[in-house]
């Protein structure tokens, strides 16, 4: 009877079929495409598609197809496929003036994987920037800025708190040392203890301690609690990530990768983008909010009239909402985003419907109180103001042209008088509520960022890398296959089959997990292939040894696999530990290499041992053997 159980044959067959199936999508090369998407929730429909195709025909640019893609998370878009990169570039240039400001035309790649394959979840490995071309930024978040912003805010808040509570004080000022909090100087010990209690109860994030007293100057120090400071730092990174994602999505870049790296870095990878200036412009944009009185929405005849004729009342602005709907809003500003302390989404306690809770600082609260007292029942609008500085290099000098866009992100009726804390209700869904909260909060970056690393990889360089990488993988594999076949004859050929499947399964697993393929990743694949044969060398040498010791062929195979297994396991576990360490190294090229190596070691253990054993058992099973071809 064969020593190879039937369920293992079954397992090998299933894994090989699945591996081939999920590795297959990588053979379908994506074709260059241009993606047209809306910037401010403008409509993507058949009419736009016709407009786009007509523009392409007018410019005499041949395209393969144009389709509307529906994507819930990133909004709809039109994808136009082209036969080559030149046509893609020409088309993007031709479309930009036609589409205007409401839409973006960005380079993208269109998958050519057949429908049935994508239906079962088959997708190719995403290509890294070094293979695709694109821009990469690494940004450091200025943590000092976070502390600065908070301490300045508390300085103002404590001042108005003391005024409100009518506690006399000499001065409230930030400590000259950053992170040391706010120093309050009072003129009696009694005042100091009342102030201390008031601050501690109002602002629980502060730890309040008595300082030195000289003469009649009693000092009180209020500093942000250390754990609160850490929380602020991490939330600053999160908020910056969210803000950046919003802005870059507006850029229309296909599949941007924006992720936190380490404690205070953010890395942004924009595939297909060749001009970092455009991306930098968006990243460096400053945005703020304005709370203004609403004068009318789209149903209002005055607004309809203003849209049609362009005659806007002198005290008003005509702005558009995120869906392109017009509003008339007052020119006088009630409060700005600088005065907003926090915005979070939740549910209204009375109705249970989605809501956004907004907290203003004392200065904003005072103005809000004054305004709402006189305007209950009237509308109020929130306008998102984004300032983008367009930098161009003309004759070696920088020319900066600022551009400001205004968007109405919320338009609601004032239901009561409020000051520092209020709620916006009547939002369609909790998704909309969280979006609004993010926009309110994410208007500006929580902390300033500095670009510490920047790289541009040209598309030709990327294609060149793909060609060379593919050649290296195939030649490396081919040479090892030939060497193994010559040295170990039939057993070598069996190992070759397994090695080939190792490549297939490795690629399949990487595709399924969605590991981004990079040049170091390709180096990892070649190394894996070179080392995977080690297990077979161990097995073959063992089998030869057993034969020399006088074992029968079948016994030699059995003993060979059994004895080699312990060695293979030990050798691979130690190797796995090394690969694991590589994956912990940041997010750069080393990580890609480490992940590939890690997966490769696991797949090679399966193919080199189980798959070869299955094939060997299949070949030698039930035969009377005198010799083995090893």
């Amino acid at each position, binding site marked *: 009877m064969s020593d190879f159980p039937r369920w293992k044959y079954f397992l090998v067959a299933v894994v090989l079929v699945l591996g081939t199936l999920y590795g297959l999508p990588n053979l379908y090369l994506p074709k260059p495409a241009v993606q047209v998407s809306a910037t401010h929730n403008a409509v993507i429909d058949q009419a736009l598609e016709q407009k786009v195709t007509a523009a392409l025909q007018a410019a005499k640019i041949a395209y393969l197809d144009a389709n509307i893609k529906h994507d819930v998370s990133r909004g709809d878009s039109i994808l136009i496929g082209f036969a080559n990169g030149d046509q893609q570039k020409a088309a993007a240039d031709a479309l930009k003036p036609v589409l205007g400001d409401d839409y973006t035309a960005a380079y993208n790649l269109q998958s050519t994987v057949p429908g049935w394959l994508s239906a079962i979840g088959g997708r190719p490995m995403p290509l890294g920037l070094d293979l695709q071309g694109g821009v990469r930024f690494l940004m450091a978040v200025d943590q000092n800025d976070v502390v600065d912003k908070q301490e300045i805010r508390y300085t103002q808040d404590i001042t108005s708190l003391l005024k409100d509570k009518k506690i006399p004080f000499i001065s409230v000022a930030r400590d000259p040392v950053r992170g040391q909090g706010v120093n309050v100087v009072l003129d009696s010990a009694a005042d100091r203890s009342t102030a201390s209690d008031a601050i501690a109860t109002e602002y629980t994030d502060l730890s309040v301690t008595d300082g030195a007293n000289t003469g009649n100057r009693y000092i009180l120090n209020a500093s942000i609690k250390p754990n609160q400071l850490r929380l602020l730092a991490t939330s600053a990174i999160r908020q910056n990530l969210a803000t950046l994602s919003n802005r870059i999505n507006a850029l229309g870049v296909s599949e941007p990768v924006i992720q936190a790296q*380490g404690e205070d870095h953010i890395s942004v990878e924009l595939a297909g983008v060749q001009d970092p200036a455009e991306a930098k412009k968006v990243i460096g944009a400053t945005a703020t909010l304005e709370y203004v009185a609403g004068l009318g929405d789209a149903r209002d005849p005055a607004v309809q009239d203003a849209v049609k004729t362009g005659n806007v009342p002198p005290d008003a602005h005509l702005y558009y909402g995120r869906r392109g709907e017009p509003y008339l809003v007052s020119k006088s500003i009630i409060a700005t985003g600088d005065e907003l302390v926090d915005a979070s989404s939740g549910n209204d306690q009375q109705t249970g419907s989605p809501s956004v809770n907004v907290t203003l600082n004392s200065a904003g609260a005072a103005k809000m109180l004054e305004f709402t007292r006189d305007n209950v029942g009237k509308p109020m609008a929130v306008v998102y103001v984004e300032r983008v500085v367009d930098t161009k290099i003309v004759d070696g000098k920088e020319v900066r042209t600022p551009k400001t866009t205004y968007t109405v992100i919320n338009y609601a009726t004032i239901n009561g008088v409020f000051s520092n804390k209020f709620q916006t209700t009547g939002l369609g869904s909790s998704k909309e509520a969280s979006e609004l909260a993010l926009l309110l909060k994410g208007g500006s970056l929580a902390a300033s960022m*500095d670009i*510490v690393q920047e790289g541009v990889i040209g598309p030709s360089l990327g294609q060149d890398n793909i060609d060379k990488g593919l050649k290296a993988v195939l030649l*490396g594999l081919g040479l090892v296959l030939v060497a193994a076949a010559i040295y*170990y004859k039939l057993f070598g050929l069996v190992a070759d089959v397994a090695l080939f499947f190792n490549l297939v399964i490795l690629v399949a697993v990487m595709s399924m997990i969605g590991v981004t393929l990079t040049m*170091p990743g390709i*180096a990892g694949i070649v190394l894996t292939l070179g080392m995977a044969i*080690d297990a077979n060398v*161990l097995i073959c040498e063992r089998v030869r040894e057993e034969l020399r010791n006088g074992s029968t062929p079948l016994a030699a195979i059995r003993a060979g696999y059994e004895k080699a297994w312990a060695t293979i396991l030990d050798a691979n576990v130690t190797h796995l530990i*090394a690969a694991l360490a590589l994956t912990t190294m940041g997010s750069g090229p080393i990580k890609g290499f480490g992940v590939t190596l890690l997966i490769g070691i696991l797949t090679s253990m399966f193919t080199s041992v189980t798959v070869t054993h299955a094939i060997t058992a299949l070949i030698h099973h039930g035969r009377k053997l005198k010799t083995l071809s090893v």
Partner: protein
Amino acid sequence: MEIFSHNSNVHFLGLRKVSIGIAILLMIASVALLATRGLNYGLDFTGGVSIETTYDKPVSVEDVRSALDKGGIENAVVQSVGGTRQVSIRFQPKDDSHYTVPEGKSPNLDLIVNDVAKALQAPRPDAKIAGKEFVGPQVGEQLRSDGVTAAIFVIIGIGVYLWIRFERRFAVAALATEVHDVLVTLGVISLVQREFDLTVLASVLAVIGYSINDKVVVFDRIRELFRSSRKADPEEVLNRSINSTLSRTIITSLFTSIAMAALYFFGGPTVHGFAITMLIGILVGTLSSIFVASPILLWLGVSKKDLMPVTKENPELARRP
């Protein structure tokens, strides 16, 4: 086909004084090299600006360098990558207000590249910028400390595993040899002044994985032979283990080297450093598996009784007189 005679019995351990002596000398030389010459750190570690330039017609590195000097870009490192039409230019931008954007602290890459392009295109209008990169100085520091952390993690992880699976002496011998392999590999890189960039760092860490693999195979055989032989003279057992795994050690190294050579010759300039470091590491690791690891094991005094599977003491037997 067989290249190595299966009944080879070279007395490797007889050479142990010589081989360990050479290993120590190599290590001292490597440390000296690293201390004096140091590593030629790449952009990833030093920070600065790197620009890839392609030419339509072949160009010499000297021409590029003189064009840069004339254009006012000093101390640039110019290297030809993959043929005569592609060069990589690396330099530290001067701390010049001209290059620094008002609101940021980092220099403006576009302005720098603009200047470089002008300098290059003055004598050669066919020069094109294919890729550009800027790395801030603090990024490199982070990387270096990450690299050291990863290496320590690997060494401790492997040590603990070997201690559990084998025995303390095996863990010590493997780690000592490992330190030797890494130092000597780094020493060679320092000697030839190959650029030490991120992929080379990845490769050095992969060398650790590769060479430990080699040692474990020999150790496995040592454990097996100790357990199976009745009268186990450590020196003889170690020697037999090296000899019987010799064929595998060399064939595997050869196969892996073939794959790495393919990567070196066809993979293009981005993986050159990786492939060459791996090739050096494979050579060093293979030699140390044969000549260094086992002598250390012998000196640490490994013996049969350390490796026998732990059998439960039978209380029944203990009670008997």
